[in-house]
């Protein structure tokens, strides 16, 4: 999953970046409002951690502009200011959640997971597709009761496909979600990782990850009864 962090304080921003990366997210970090707006309009994010007080363009302005352009990216706002006025303004302005600094990092992680879940209309943090179990909280996966040893990136890819179960995810989307903006890799690396994942998940079992020629990949459940690679 890919997140955008817009935070100007170097200490806090650096700590959040590190913490979220270690939690398996790909992160882009914008240091001021304008940079943040630029990232937001040119990228695809599963969620945004947006600070309120920013140089050049404030968090609330970014929020309002983004919502005004009709986009529904989940946004969690951070503020250190006093009073519920900010909270009310932020939530009314379209923020999905709000955290007051200083906060416990575990709380930030949990709220972000909830935001992402809501976006994919999932209500639990353990998702089951046939005999595949994906625990988004612990970042573990099992198939047929057996633990799957996945790298962080492999898990991130599986997470994405699982959240979008029975929907086609294009290679571009996969690449946008899994790689940070200034990463030098190309989208071919997506195919590579799909093959890694398949080796670990699908080997010797019913194929879950299917290819749609010319379009992308999909995690398909048995509820989707058609034998071909059509949409369910």
């Amino acid at each position, binding site marked *: 999953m890919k997140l955008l962090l817009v935070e100007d*304080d170097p200490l806090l921003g650096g700590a959040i970046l590190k*913490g979220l990366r*270690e939690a398996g997210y790909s992160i882009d970090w914008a240091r001021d409002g304008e940079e943040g707006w630029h990232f937001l309009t040119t990228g695809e994010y599963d969620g945004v951690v947006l600070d309120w007080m920013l140089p050049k363009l404030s968090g609330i302005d970014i929020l309002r502009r983004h919502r005004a352009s009709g986009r529904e990216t989940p946004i969690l706002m951070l503020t250190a200011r006093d009073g519920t006025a900010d909270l009310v303004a932020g939530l009314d302005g379209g923020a999905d959640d709000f955290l007051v600094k200083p906060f416990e990092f575990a709380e930030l992680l949990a709220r972000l997971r909830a935001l992402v879940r809501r976006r994919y209309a999932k209500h639990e943090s353990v998702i089951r597709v046939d005999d595949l179990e994906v625990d988004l909280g612990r970042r573990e996966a099992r198939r047929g009761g057996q633990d799957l040893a996945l790298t962080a990136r492999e898990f991130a890819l599986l997470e994405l496909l699982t959240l979008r179960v029975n929907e086609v995810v294009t290679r571009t989307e996969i690449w946008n979600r899994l790689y940070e903006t200034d990463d030098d890799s190309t989208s071919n690396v997506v195919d590579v990782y799909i093959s890694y994942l398949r080796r670990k998940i699908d080997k010797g079992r019913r194929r879950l990850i299917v290819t749609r020629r010319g379009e992308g990949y999909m995690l398909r459940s048995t509820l989707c009864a058609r034998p071909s690679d059509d949409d369910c």
Partner: protein
Amino acid sequence: MRASLRRRLLIQTSAIVFLTAAAVAGFVWWQMNRSLRQGLDALLRTEAAALASRVEADEGRIEFEYEPGSLRHESAENRPLVQIITPSNQSIFSSREIPQASDLPGQVMRHAAAASIAVFDTHLVTGRPSYRVFATLVDPVVEDGDPAGRAPAVQQKVWVIVARPLAPILGTLRQLAWTLASAVLAATVLAVVAGYYVSRRGTQPIVSLANHLATIDAEHPELNIDARRMPVELDPIVTTTEALLRRIDSELTRQRRLTADLAHDLRTPLAGVRALLDVCLQRPRENSEYKETISVALESLRRFTGMLENVLVLARLDAGSEVLRMTSVAVDELVSESVATLRPLALSRGIRIEIEGASGMAIMADRDKLQKVLTNVLANAIEYSPAAARVSVQTRSLNERLEIHVADQGAGITPDNRERVFERFFRADASRAEGAGHNGLGLPIARGLMRLMGGDLNMRENQPRGSDFVLVLPKREGAAV
């Protein structure tokens, strides 16, 4: 008893009505008095003339033909009195009713003096009702047909005196007086009643306004009044109150903003340290990483402590509890200490610091605070200077004060912001300052400290570019120049 607008209006209106009515009544009565008396005098004059025409001189004798009852009268008491006498007091005729005790002729003579007419009031007899007397000195009518040749005797004039009682007039006037008095009383009572309602209704807008003011919310003061529905006399009150409430509201907003900004500035460094430590403990790390994390946390806390101290200084300045220790301070030592402290920073940016004019100067000040101000301002100048520029510290001694100018060649500050930089949490760039660790409190504190010492801190434009911060201190006794 407190003054009451309504009571005052009521009393004043009633008093005015009363006084007006009384004046009108008095005038009416007085006019009636005059008119009645004039009528009486006219009547007396006519009667006297009629009587005079009956006085005949016949061969030296004076005769008077009088028919009792010929003069008009309403009743026996109001019968007119007639007396005809010669100047030598010889009575030709006298009405029966004239009291014995009265000396009518004598009174007439006295009133007439040398004139031939006398008109006056008299009681005739003390204690009895009064009369109006009209007396005139006339020539008797000479009868025609005197035998020719006989020379008439010396003509003798006679006094014709007519008197009428004043009782009828006085009676009418008394009745009139009672009627008028009743009318005045009635008018006054009416005025009181009407005045009560008028004063109540008239002052109602004031009561309404007061009630409206009572509904104002102290947290969000605002006057929601349609001024067109208010009487025009209340406009000044409404306008002034609205202006006052707007000022209060903006002051409250300013204070809320300051508190919010302060909260932000205190929370952010703590949030950073907390996140840093939280994340560090998420998983096992190398020792070197732990060391690095701990150092960063410590540095952060150090900076945070510095800022907290600033906040506390401001709070003490606000509360007036910041204590001064004034001594004679050698300016050159002070300046060189500040410069020495900032030399590493200046060197790292290639800035040259030039000192001028400080030698031999001394001034009364709190040494620590002055040092803090100078160091703060100088650090500002160095940080906002472009690389390899020049910062000058120039001390000037003027008549009543000492000035230390810290001038840089940086970008300067726009004229609008020149005073605003001394506002708390003000940052010239939209929401945050560019420099690390700047929290918008340095300059407000510096100025607060200078003013506490009796001086000031101002900012001017430096030529050709940049800012010139001026520390001002007054010269007192004991300061060497």
